[in-house]
């Protein structure tokens, strides 16, 4: 398997605090990789560095053989990295359908003149996009609520909808930021199924989780972060038995989920 994403000694500082301190991490094609760590360990910052929200002060981000650090976030989406947010960020004034449509944005070939003149190209793309959106909605099980407004749907569905939106961009790599946080057991199990199905389509996944259990059985490789540093990597079992990991988790009082929000 060839390497899809490689984070090479990335460093990100905020003022005097080093949030990400020389992190190294690799996702291979078709892999599901977990990135875990206690609250405040810098997981989300790593994700923000990968997706271009922050530019790393040092180090490289290599995606598909290309250095992408410092690129604008939308360009990185175009390159094939999709993501979801820890705190849901859907467009609240729009419907489920429209939010998924927004994910298709980077793939649209239409320009403003196609829109104004209603060209044949526009009609064709729109027809195709409509089918794709319904396909994605069906895939994540939200087709029945496609015309609902975001304000009217429950939290769990919003989280899954974010995945649907990311899928519309046809990513090669999907970054999920604490997808299970706030979900009940049923929803969580459904989510595991969806993640597996996505992976079966050949999309690699980097799973950021606070809850170690969720990563178990999904991620074939796990990285553990603490205080911005990678403290362990390997299989789930290897990591959970690592004394450094146990100490990191016990030491910071896990279960305080809101601390990072």
């Amino acid at each position, binding site marked *: 398997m060839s390497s899809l994403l490689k984070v090479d000694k990335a460093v990100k500082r905020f003022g005097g605090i080093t949030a990400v301190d020389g992190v190294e991490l690799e996702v291979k094609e078709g892999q599901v990789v977990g990135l875990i760590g206690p609250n405040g360990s810098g997981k989300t910052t790593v994700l*923000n560095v990968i997706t271009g*929200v922050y530019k790393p002060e040092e180090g490289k981000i290599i995606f598909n053989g290309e250095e992408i650090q410092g690129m604008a976030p939308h360009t990185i989406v175009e390159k094939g990295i999709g993501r979801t947010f820890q705190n849901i960020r859907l467009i609240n004034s729009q419907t489920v359908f429209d939010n998924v449509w927004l994910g298709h944005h980077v793939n649209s070939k239409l320009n403003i003149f196609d829109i104004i003149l209603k060209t044949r190209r526009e009609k064709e793309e729109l027809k195709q996009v409509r089918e794709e959106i319904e396909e994605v909605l069906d895939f994540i099980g939200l087709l029945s609520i496609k015309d609902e407004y975001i304000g009217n749907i429950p939290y769990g569905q919003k989280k899954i909808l974010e995945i649907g939106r990311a899928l519309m961009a046809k990513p090669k790599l999907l970054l999920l930021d604490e997808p299970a946080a706030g979900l009940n057991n049923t929803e969580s199990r459904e989510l595991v199924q969806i993640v597996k199905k996505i992976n079966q389509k050949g999309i690699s996944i980097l799973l950021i989780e606070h809850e170690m259990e969720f990563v178990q059985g999904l991620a074939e490789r796990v990285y553990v972060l603490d205080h911005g540093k990678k403290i362990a990597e390997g299989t789930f079992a290897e990591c959970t038995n690592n004394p450094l990991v146990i100490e990191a988790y016990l030491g910071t009082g896990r279960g305080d989920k809101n601390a990072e929000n």
Partner: protein
Amino acid sequence: MSLGTFVQLIIQGINMGLIYALAALAVSLIWNASGLFNFSQGDLLTLGGYFMLTFTVVALKLPYWVGFALAIVVMGTMGFFLSRSYFYPMINQKLNPQLILIGTVALSVVIRNAILNIWGPSAQRFDNPFGSKPILIGDAIIMPYQIVNIVIVIILVVLLQLFLRKTVMGIAMRAVAQKPVVSSLMGIKVEQLVSYTFLLSTCLASIAGVLTGPILPLIPEMGSLLSIKAFAAVLIGGLGSFSGALVGGLIVGISEVLFSTFITSTYKDVFIFLMMMIILQIRPGGIFRIEISEKV
């Protein structure tokens, strides 16, 4: 150019700048307490000036300081009720901030046209008791009101600082921008806080209005002319920052006077606006930037 003339220009610039600074300060205070940018601040200032006109010249013929005090009381009361009945309910409803902002634009249309109807379109003045005999310092010609205005603003700034640092309400006004919860922890209702901030800002508007009296004649459109430069001042200095409002006001006032004298008075406003645009491009938060980071 002699040093004296230069000093004279600087004093002139400081005088104009302090007017902008007071308006900027009022805008900043309201922004801190409520997240609302008050586009009617300049027209409130003008209204303060016209109240002074009425109290000391047109109707009551009160002495200067009595008229001044009455203008502050009337404007402050108006600000308080404006907040209670208009702005706070909208903030409380979590109405789209842009709409509330447009509400302040509508308020400025109302105030300006009300002034036009009540006091008429022609330029008017009220007297100040400080005399028109210039003080000569070297070859610098300085008007008595220029000294008085500067002294009044210095006293005002000291009092405001004491209020903002030593009283519970003042501390809440400063703190609320960062953490809205704080004010309720201190036992102050947000409604009270917002209303008192409006009260304070309309008081500042009336003071600025009265101080403008000897500098510029009162005309109904004065508000929009002054407010655009006061906005430039507040953004250059840093929205939400006390020192920023003062420094921004002085920068705008002094550079305006210097540009008019040495280059051209025709394009002095263009110069101020371009200066603001450039500063904001380099430092989007202004000089005394208050960091607001967003968590993704």
